[in-house]
């Protein structure tokens, strides 16, 4: 590529889906936004027909490193993220060792910086070893170089009400948030799928909606009582949407996320016994899918979080009961949300920016992500071709996980370019190069 001093002129993009404008990217920031912009030496990107959006921020990603590098690494997971339109991801804490100390979160943070594809923001565990017994050193993780603000035992519910209360209280000291995996453990012992009409026929142990809803109901009341900030991971039922709506009406400081797969897929797919559809929380019914879409559209649900969960193939090529729970999602999220929310008329691209970027950055307290596409703002942005259609092929993805439930599905929307800190990590729909920190100036001085 010609030396352009990191200057890019995006011509004629529909900013947030509105009228065509030019964006000038220079020195890591948006230098100008307007019509008929010019810049000598800039690389010009013709963006007619493309939508410009803030870089997506995932509040819920499993990068698997350290510990399960056979499933995913920070490098492969963040390549997938960049291709999917992300400029920041929150890496969940259930690695091996668990991210429950400053040392582990700093390791993940460093791996993210070294990879250079997106901003990797480690999530700290709420309890030591995710064991649900003793608070992890939340303050040390908050004060570390990783500046952790989101804490979660994701995969496991902080079910002890006293421990949950203490965690909610404690994180107030550094403006943190507790992201709860809402799953009452006794009601879901051995659970394999949504409990209902389909589980009755298939003879698979049910995961009842009430196991999610009862924890959310308890937690919003706890958050109100201690006046703290609660985030509910991967909301999956109509009842949960109702409870969160009620809580927000009462002014409780709660945010919620929904996954792309819960916006599209139902438990009918489990009839195949194909473990690619096994996920926690499980796929629910069509009525739940419709309620989740409505909740995302009206703001009850704040963000889309992928819960990207890659697994090695042997963990899915087996009996349903033996299979691991989880689906990949980073490279399909944009398309699934476009398909379920925009093409259905429930949302605009501006709404898309809110639920995939702005609100997500606010929950994670990421000051330089999810910003407006205005002059002077950090150049974390993407260009999307909304007219593109493509067929999902897990073998062609950057993630190491082949467990995409959307395999073979034709979906709309393609990420054409991703700019992270002003650098194109993705160009022409292909991975470009990672972002590199500018060389330290101190070396020159000495």
């Amino acid at each position, binding site marked *: 590529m010609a030396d352009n001093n990191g200057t890019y002129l995006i011509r004629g993009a529909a900013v947030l889906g509105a009228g065509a404008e030019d964006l000038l990217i220079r020195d890591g920031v948006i230098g100008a936004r307007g019509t008929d912009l010019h810049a000598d030496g800039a690389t010009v990107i013709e963006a007619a027909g493309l939508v410009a959006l803030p870089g997506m921020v995932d509040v819920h990603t499993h990068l698997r490193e350290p510990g399960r590098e056979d499933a995913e690494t920070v490098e492969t997971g963040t390549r997938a993220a960049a291709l999917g339109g992300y400029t920041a991801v929150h890496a969940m804490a259930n690695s091996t060792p668990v991210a429950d100390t400053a040392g582990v979160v700093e390791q993940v943070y460093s791996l993210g910086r070294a990879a250079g594809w997106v901003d990797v923001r480690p999530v700290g565990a709420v309890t030591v070893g995710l064991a649900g017994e003793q608070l992890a050193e939340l303050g040390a993780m908050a004060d570390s170089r990783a500046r952790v603000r989101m804490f979660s035992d994701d995969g496991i519910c902080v079910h002890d009400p006293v421990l949950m209360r203490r965690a909610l209280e404690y994180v107030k000291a550094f403006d943190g948030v507790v992201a709860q995996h809402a799953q009452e453990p006794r009601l879901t012992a051995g659970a394999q799928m949504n409990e209902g009409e389909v589980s*009755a026929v298939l003879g698979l142990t049910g995961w009842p909606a009430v196991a999610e809803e009862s924890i959310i109901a308890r937690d919003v009341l706890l958050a109100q009582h201690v006046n703290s900030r609660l985030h509910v991971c991967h909301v999956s039922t109509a009842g949960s949407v109702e409870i969160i709506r009620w809580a927000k009406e009462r002014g409780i400081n709660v945010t919620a996320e929904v996954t792309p797969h819960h916006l599209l897929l139902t438990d009918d797919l489990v009839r195949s016994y194909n473990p690619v559809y096994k996920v926690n929380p499980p796929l629910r019914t069509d009525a739940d899918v419709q309620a989740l879409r409505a909740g995302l559209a009206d703001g009850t649900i704040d963000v889309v979080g992928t819960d990207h969960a890659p697994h090695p193939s042997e963990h899915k090529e087996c009996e349903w009961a033996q299979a691991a729970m989880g689906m990949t999602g980073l490279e399909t999220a944009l398309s699934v949300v476009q398909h379920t929310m925009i093409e259905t008329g429930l949302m605009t691209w501006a709404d898309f920016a809110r639920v995939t970027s702005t609100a997500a950055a606010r929950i994670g307290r990421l000051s330089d992500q999810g910003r407006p596409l205005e002059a002077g703002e950090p150049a974390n942005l993407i260009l999307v071709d909304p007219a593109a259609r493509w067929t999902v092929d897990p073998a062609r993805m950057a993630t190491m996980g082949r467990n995409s439930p959307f395999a073979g599905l034709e979906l709309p929307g393609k990420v054409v370019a991703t700019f992270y800190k002003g650098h194109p990590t993705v160009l022409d729909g292909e991975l470009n190069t990672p972002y590199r920190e500018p060389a330290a100036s101190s070396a020159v001085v000495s």
Partner: protein
Amino acid sequence: MKHLLSTEDLSLSNAIRILDTAEEMAAVGDREVKKLPALRGRTVVNLFFEDSTRTRISFEAAAKRLSADVINFAAKGSSVSKGESLKDTAQTLAAMGADAVVIRHWASGAPHRLAATDWIDAAVINAGDGTHEHPTQALLDAFTMRRHWAKLAGSGSVGADLKGMRVAIAGDVLHSRVARSNVWLLRTLGAEVTLVAPPTLLPIGVEQWPCKVSYNMDQTLEQGVDAVMMLRVQGERMNASFFPSTREYSRRWGFDDNRLRALDSLGLKDTIIMHPGPMNRGLEISAAAADSPRSTVLSQVRNGVSVRMAALYLLLSGDTREPAAVPDTTRAYAHSNAAHSTKESN
């Protein structure tokens, strides 16, 4: 029909075809030489991930009466217990040239996985998977009921269905693959099914099933019933609070001596009592009920071999497979070949 995985998707014509073929197979069991050459040179693997001596020997007897070679593969003490995956086990059996795999597995859906993947090309027969289905058990139950129903009507069973027959299935429906397979098959055959169970042992979603649900055994009997099928209940369920005690379970849901007498006083002289076995005498069924002339428990076992012969024969000599050697001596076999030519997709 390439596989026999469930009764939920078994068509009426295929169900009748299996039952009719089983009638012919039963005739073989009455002969001096209880053997047909139909599956000579074919290999049937009994792949059992869960202990079940009864079902395994029933399939083994069925395959041997059809002259197939039988390999018994019990997961316990084998490479499976050393962590070998279902996929590797299936591919191993495929490499050894298995023509049919009879699989019993503790995990619901395991037979579907074998049938849906490219791990193995053999015909798959579900011999009971988790709490999902046990189709050959339902077929042998239907076979037993059909003979009884036809005898009452004074007609033959071949070609008949179960229209109008009232069947109560009582007990731990939630954990029962037998109950599920029976509900679907009896629906297909036109019987009227009532499930009788404590509410804790009925699955959420049962209201969508093609049957009635009752919490009261005595009322169900009073309303009239032609067959009562008692399901095995495990005492350990008590520990998970599905019911307070085995005694209370027995009093409210068991088929005890009082209920046996009630059949007489209600004038239900032709009502049969069924049980898939093994029985917990004194828990879900009293000794007197199990041993009464109404009990079909041993007929069910006998019919199981005939039904499994029929299933193996139809799957292994179907259109998608090479034709089996045509035996020239058995009238029954020729008849089933004729039925076979009307094969339809399942």
